[in-house]
């Protein structure tokens, strides 16, 4: 069974370029604005969309994504509404893969079986759940695979050679390599170290390997994209949305346009990644 994610990466492989994977927070700063941002992403050059599910206690996130989650919750975002956002998006786009990313508790409270049915029906293709390591696979990973959704796992600098097979075992869609230890949005380590890690993971799997945590500029996207099958950008997008508002919440610029401008630049970056021979 192939999903939109599998098809998208197969196509990009033919085009010989890495994917641009873009994260934004569902409901930030409000439902309608977030939906307009989501709709602007594919045309600006995003190949895969990560749809953030807000959670009150985002333990692995840095200040920018923490704040985005709080803004979304304050505007009334719920898991039900995040699913609705995917549904609304799908009325105009049936190709771009959507991966929901967040923490387990809202799904657990929603009910795993009911969530999987609703997510599939809403046009969700995959899940990234930060606080579900392989040791907890029976909770959601195994049921999700059974339901035809990809379960995308994070591999990190602490995932050593011995542990890597455990992490990869039930992973599908792609592998998300977290380029450093730390929370989202910290500084990117030097790209040669990241390339080495990507090569190491690729020795263990045929799945595409995408790299995230700390990628903010087109130049970084290009450098990472030389070795990786995809480049994930999150904090920079979330920060661009935040910058469209003053401290009182008054809108200064159009967030969908601000995100589109940023994403266009990043998309140019990943498209250049394979033009020059990899160093």
């Amino acid at each position, binding site marked *: 069974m192939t999903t939109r994610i599998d098809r998208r990466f197969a196509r990009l492989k033919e085009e010989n370029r890495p994917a641009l994977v873009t994260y934004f927070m569902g409901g930030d700063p409000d439902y309608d604005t977030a939906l307009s941002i989501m709709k602007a992403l594919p045309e600006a050059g995003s190949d895969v969309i990560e749809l953030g599910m*807000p*959670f*009150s*206690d*985002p*333990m*692995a996130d*840095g200040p920018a994504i*923490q704040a985005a989650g709080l803004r979304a*919750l304050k505007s009334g975002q*719920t*898991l*039900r509404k995040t699913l609705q956002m995917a549904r609304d998006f799908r009325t105009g786009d049936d190709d771009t893969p959507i991966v929901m990313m967040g*923490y*387990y*508790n*809202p*799904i*657990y*409270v*929603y009910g795993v079986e009911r969530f999987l049915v609703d997510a599939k029906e809403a046009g969700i293709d995959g899940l990234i759940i*930060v*606080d*579900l*390591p*392989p*040791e*907890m696979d029976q909770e959601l990973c195994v049921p999700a695979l059974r339901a035809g959704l990809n379960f995308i*796992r*994070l*591999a*990190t*600098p*602490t*995932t*050593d050679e011995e*542990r890597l097979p455990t*992490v990869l075992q039930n992973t599908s869609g792609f592998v998300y390599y*977290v380029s450093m*230890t*730390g*929370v989202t949005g*910290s500084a990117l380590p030097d790209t040669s170290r990241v390339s080495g890690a990507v090569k190491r993971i690729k020795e263990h799997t045929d799945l595409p390997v995408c790299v995230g945590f700390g990628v903010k500029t087109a130049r970084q996207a290009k450098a990472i994209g030389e070795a990786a099958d995809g480049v994930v950008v999150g904090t920079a997008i979330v920060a661009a949305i935040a910058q469209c508002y003053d401290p009182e919440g008054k809108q200064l610029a159009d967030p969908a346009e601000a995100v589109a401008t940023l994403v266009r630049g990043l998309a140019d970056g990943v498209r250049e990644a394979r033009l020059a021979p990899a160093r």
Partner: protein
Amino acid sequence: MNKPAELNSFRSGPDESGMFGIFGGRFVAETLMPLILDLEKHWNEAKNDPAFRAELDNLGKHYTGRPSPLYYAERLSEHLGGAKIYFKREDLNHTGSHKINNCLGQILLAKRMGKTRIIAETGAGQHGVASATVSARFGLPCVVYMGATDVERQKPNVFRMNLLGAQVKPVSAGHGTLKDAMNEALRDWVTNVEDTYYLIGTAAGPHPYPEMVRELQSVIGIEARAQILEQEGRLPDAIVAAVGGGSNAIGLFHAFLDDRDVAIHGVEAGGHGLQGDEHCASMTAGRPGVLHGNRTYLLQNEDGQILDGHSISAGLDYPGVGPEHSWLKDSGRVTYTPVLDEEALEAFQLTTRIEGIIPALESAHAIAEAIKLAPKMGKDQIMIVNFSGRGDKDVHTVGKMLGMEI
């Protein structure tokens, strides 16, 4: 739900994957998973190592001052006219609470693992003080995360931590209480994976913390059980302890879990009452969910977002509880009941006036429940209350509640 049909023992949990029934587990980011597995391996070695045990016992005796007395609260018992009330005097420990028991064990483990930096979260500041104390004693730098609200209401403890050489980092996210401090400590740990040991203060978090903290605190119940047998020649009819995360409670309860004739009462923070959101009674009013690495009863809304809760006692101001308590609740072995802020405040004053001991507001919750239970019991019956900490840290809060300027 999750009611075991027939149990041979209530003391055998958790299973190998860290579960107490459906509760517990290891719900952490992949970055932390190898660290937690490594911690589990070292802990399993240490707890079976007689040298580790001997060093811990030696520190317990000469540094903490163990065993802590089991004190017959004669005047309180007479005043209430029912059961004989005994206090297990953890307030007399070095640093003034039961928290030191856990910190000594974990810092020995950190040394064993070659870690060179300690981080901790704290609510009331008692665990922060205990962490800062053992870090000073063993010469390791210590960072304590503390909610900004708690920094404000527990100033004396903040100063004590600073004196002990620890760096206190206020956390302003959320309501600025224990939950937010724990989030920030986890963010520190996920960043500094090489050298840092996370010294969790309560019997919660990812496996093996709930089991490890329980084992290190179970000295309370082991001593109390032996002491009451020596002083009264029999086991108590009831034991009572306050439950925030639940480390002092599980420490007292664990030795008694298979003594089926001993009634066990856990006391949750009822705050301003259970009708609104102004309480921390996660087991009485919450639902199972996943937070801070474990599945347990949580205060949360219908979307699975965690609520902040409220308690007069900073140490009980946490929307969750250790997973073993959740399991003990569902199994029916322990009865959990809420006590209101004002009831705790009355117990605080009564104990101070007629026993001459100032209890921590956390312990005052347990005493408040004892005040309700004792008159319904016979004079030949016996109750042990865990006097988990001393109340010097709380005099400012109490003064404010009573309308006095200190």
